């Protein structure tokens, strides 16, 4: 677990070492604006999210992941691209589909899976569950399960940065369905009027839950088409291309840090699984998933690394390290006890307890 020390992806550390070796032998990487080390980090993050999410599903089938869970399979490039561009101290606000963003900030897989398995070793010792992943030390300021709620909250975190003169950026991730709830519109207007250093990221995976977003939305691009109404640039990015996401994120972060206000970015993507564990996704037209699988972000990025001359050996080494860590994480979670009953009444109030009367 020691590998993850930096919120913005300690993953880059190991990846960078092997990549720097590669760079000497690969002229393509030398001219790359993203750079070998960052590319390896982006792949590492995507691969980790992919295998960890798959494992979460396996564990669910074994009845070891309890409650509900919402996977980001197919949407890994967005989490990786943004986290790759974030600095230590930048803040992430996620939705209930927040495993990917939590991992991308450097939270160990064991802590996350432990929470999904509702064990004592979980990120919140089983008190939050899959939909509320939080790791303040990594800048993950919570995962919010009421649609739209965290957009105004992210505004507040950005207001604090503005008021105190801090240069961190607040990044708020949400789905396409969020664009039709009031809090989305309140937050956008508020952030623009107050010129807050916040970046709103819509992951448009085409389905709000079970219903196509296009069936219930007045405009074609549910987030981007609303941006001009708030005086914002209309930004659409290929959410299955981590490099494109990373570049877009960098630009938006630079704007926010320069005091030039918020951005709204719509990332086009597709979730490979259903809305939640209970949903097989039967409402999707035949062939749609297959078409999108051709644009699987993890496979695409792996192929791109090869194009840039990264050796199969280097890629496999990254993958094996993650596979090993994941296997160990699962064993540790299985071995972890369930949370003790005494934490039931802790942390209701700031005094640590739950007393509401004397």
């Amino acid at each position, binding site marked *: 677990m020691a590998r993850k020390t930096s919120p913005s992806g300690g993953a880059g550390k190991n990846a960078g070492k092997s990549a720097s070796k590669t760079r000497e032998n690969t002229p393509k990487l030398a001219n790359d604006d993203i750079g070998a080390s960052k590319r390896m980090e982006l792949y590492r993050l995507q691969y980790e999210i992919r295998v960890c999410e798959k494992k979460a599903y396996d564990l669910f089938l074994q009845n070891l992941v309890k409650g509900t869970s919402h996977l980001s399979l197919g949407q890994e490039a967005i989490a990786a691209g943004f986290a790759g561009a974030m600095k230590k101290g930048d*803040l992430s606000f996620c939705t209930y589909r927040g495993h990917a963003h939590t991992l991308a900030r450097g939270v160990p897989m064991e802590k996350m899976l432990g929470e999904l398995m509702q064990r004592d070793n979980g*990120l*919140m*010792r089983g*008190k*939050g569950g899959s939909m*509320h992943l*939080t*790791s*303040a*030390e990594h800048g993950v*300021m*919570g995962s*919010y399960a*009421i649609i*739209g*709620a*965290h*957009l*105004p*909250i*992210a*505004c*507040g*975190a*950005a*207001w*604090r*940065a503005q*008021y*105190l003169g801090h240069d961190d950026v*607040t990044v708020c991730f949400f789905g396409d369905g969020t664009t039709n709830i*009031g*809090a989305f519109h*309140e*937050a956008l*207007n*508020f952030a623009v*009027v*107050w010129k807050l250093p916040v970046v709103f990221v819509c992951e448009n995976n085409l389905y709000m839950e079970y219903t196509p977003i296009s069936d219930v939305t007045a405009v074609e691009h549910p987030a981007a088409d609303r941006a001009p109404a708030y005086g914002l640039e209309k930004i659409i990015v290929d959410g299955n291309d981590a490099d494109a996401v990373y570049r877009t994120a960098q630009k938006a972060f630079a704007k926010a840090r320069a005091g030039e206000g918020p951005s709204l970015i719509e990332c086009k993507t597709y979730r490979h699984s259903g809305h939640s564990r209970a949903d097989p996704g039967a409402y999707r037209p035949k062939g749609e998933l297959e078409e999108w699988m051709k644009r699987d972000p993890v496979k695409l990025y792996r192929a791109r690394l090869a194009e840039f001359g990264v050796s199969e050996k280097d890629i496999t080494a990254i993958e094996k390290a993650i596979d090993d860590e994941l296997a160990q994480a699962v064993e540790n979670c299985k071995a972890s006890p369930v949370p003790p009953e005494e*934490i039931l009444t*802790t*942390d*209701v*109030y*700031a005094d*640590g307890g*739950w*007393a*509401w*009367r*004397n």
Partner: protein
Amino acid sequence: MAELTYREAVARGIAQEMERDERVVFLGEDVAKAGGVFKATVGLYEKFGPLRVRDTPISEQAILGAAMGAAMTGLRPIAEIMFSDFLAVCFDFIANEFPKSRYMSNGQLACPLVVRTGNGAGSRFGAQHSQSVENWSMMIPGLKVVAPSSPADVVGLLAAAVRDPDPVIFYEHKSLYAVKGEVPDGEILDKLGTAKILRSGRDATIIALALMVPRAMEAVEILARDHGIDCEVIDVRSLVPLDTQTILGSIARTGRLFTVEENPRLCGWGAEIASIAADECFYDLDGPIVRITTPHIPLPAADNLEDIVLPTPARIVDKIMRAMT
């Protein structure tokens, strides 16, 4: 010692805390340049400037969300929701966000903020601008709930609320804004979770909140003068934490309990106190517990109708007389 109105006490309380701590910021609709629709925040914008006292759009979710995000990252925000009825349009933050972030995160996150809001009837505003909704927030684990009845308590309890590390919903009564009272000079800091015995008495304990406190006081003077019934009056002040020791101790002395509540009857705060009394001091009681409340109806606008539905001194006297004689 100075005589201040309840509304002036609000501004003084906020100013006291903003002077003390630069992390204290204040936001809401019309609160800055206009000084608040109830004129309860006059002068704060001029004194503390546009970075600390900020007008917002009519976006209650944005107001409470922004307060929460600022609170969890280090500020001490005070947010105003103009009328407490409007808590319904941002209730997600009251019910799901503020009070659960600490628990769900296993103590990683905190939410030290204050939501001030104009509560209660008497202004003839009708059913959507007059409700007493303190019980809406009392039922939610993780919140603290305060409702002062006097200018001095406004300053002291507001200061305590701002300094409290938990989210506090602070109900100001609209019909008390013009009421005057003596407020001590210098810094005032009260304590949440403390009820106050405003009048000692032998025969019955009357528990009231906010606007019902002066009405209960008026009623017990009539009962003493005209009927020889000597009542003790307790201003609950803080519903969460609830000072049950003061309340139960009083019941043990008087043997009778009456609650005077402006919230509609079902699940009003007095029901919880009655339940606690029944559980814990049943054998101290010499007669049934009586709740005097607004009936289970929306509030009407017409003055004669609104006057009928709220507990009045005359109705309080009548209810107590019927129960005691």
